């Protein structure tokens, strides 16, 4: 079986190698089907005809590379995505968090921040916000800048309000926003304990002793091998008894240390680290 199925496949692999050599960003463990789609969209956007042309230019043009990162890694997110997931966090995890004097939370792959603020609202209602520090990280600096600003278009507001209610939070989502002309701004009170910082799950290292790690709909973009590696990174960063929360389509099935975790709510992919031996 040849390693590369066709010329186009070879071009993609070569591009990823070159990007790694030149810029240190490693996309070689990303799932190919979706990455290939996003690279072809990027070619169209940039009006570049062929991948080898992109490969030549991306080595020489930092601005082009920045746009590549921005477009190819961008994740779509929303406030309280999967409302029942947040209800489950409230039901299964909050009580234990209340036993800690200080709580460290890592939200990995936070994109434009909607879910970080969703979690902050939940913590606020449970009286935990003031003793929590949330480290919100992403590989993509431009989405982090937007997350930090906390300004969102009001076009999805009614959907978000519905999600908020379905997640079981009290009052109304708008209690946490200042309303602008066609946008909303997240209350600064929610933002003050959130630290936004760049972090690449593929090449960067362990991130302190966390009581809770959120990483939702990021692992689906990775191959099994890379999923195993990244969950290993989470496991090292997680306090004994801490919780790992994944997206609905993500699991620990491809993780070597699966036995270190107990499923708290398997349907909603909430796992607790209950052993230090894999």
């Amino acid at each position, binding site marked *: 079986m040849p390693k590369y199925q066709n010329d186009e496949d070879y071009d993609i692999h070569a591009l990823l190698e070159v990007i790694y050599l030149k810029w240190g960003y490693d996309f070689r463990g990303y799932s190919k089907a979706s990455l290939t789609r996003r690279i072809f969209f990027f070619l169209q956007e940039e009006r570049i005809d062929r991948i080898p042309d992109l490969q030549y230019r991306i080595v020489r043009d930092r601005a082009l590379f920045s746009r590549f990162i921005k477009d190819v890694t961008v994740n779509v997110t929303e406030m309280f995505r999967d409302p029942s997931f947040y209800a489950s966090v409230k039901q299964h995890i909050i009580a234990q968090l209340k036993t800690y004097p200080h709580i460290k939370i890592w939200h990995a792959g936070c994109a434009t921040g909607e879910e970080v603020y969703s979690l902050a609202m939940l913590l606020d209602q449970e009286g935990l916000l003031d003793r929590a520090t949330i480290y919100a990280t992403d590989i993509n600096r431009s989405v982090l800048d937007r997350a930090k600003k906390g300004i969102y278009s009001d076009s999805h507001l009614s959907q978000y309000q519905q999600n908020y209610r379905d997640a079981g939070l009290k009052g109304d989502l708008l209690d946490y926003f200042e309303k602008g002309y066609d946008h909303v701004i997240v209350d600064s009170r929610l933002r003050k304990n959130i630290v936004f910082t760049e972090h690449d799950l593929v090449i960067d290292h362990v991130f302190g002793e966390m009581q809770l790690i959120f990483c939702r709909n990021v692992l689906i973009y990775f191959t099994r091998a890379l999923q195993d590696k990244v969950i290993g990174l989470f496991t090292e960063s997680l306090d004994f008894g801490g919780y790992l929360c994944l997206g609905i389509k993500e*699991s620990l099935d491809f993780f070597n240390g699966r036995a270190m975790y107990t499923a708290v709510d398997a349907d909603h992919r909430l796992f607790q680290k209950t052993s230090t031996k894999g």
Partner: protein
Amino acid sequence: MLMNPDKTTFSKLVVIGTSWGGIDALKALLGRLNAPFTFALVVVIHQERHKKSHLSTIFARMVPFPVLEAEDKQQILPGNMYISTPNYHLLVEQDGTLSHTIDSAVNFCRPSVDVLFQTAADAFGDRVIAIVLTGANQDGAEGAKWIQQRGGKVYVQDPKEAEAKVMPLATIAKIDVDLIGNLDTLALTLNNLERKT
């Protein structure tokens, strides 16, 4: 591409796209298939985005072959059917696994039939058969074109029979499809695949 004639490799990859009216159409189509079969079925159906889907359980009770909600990085096995999850695109990888993304909606749809069809075509070329069933939007037409361009076949439910005609008609308008037929004919065509191999 060489085919491994072992039990873990499907003979053909049958990808199905549907929307409005799709549940009834699938029930009728699947109920007529002779199991076990050597191809694999992967289905994208548009559903309400925030509800947990029970379709795989419902279909599994009706048919004599395994019906699974697609899991991420799951190997596609012959004789099985895999069904999409609301609010996630479903893609086919070159190594014969399924994957998911939350990338932007395509044709206002997530999952999108086009995304399934295009990635299936890229991964398995002339081993792909696409079936476009009833649906009230044009998702799938562009993907059907990719499938034909890469040597695969495209079958469409007869719009006269379809509960919603837009989806079948959009594909028929875009390309010269390989077959237009009612659900009986489509089922017979799939059953006949087994005889030829």
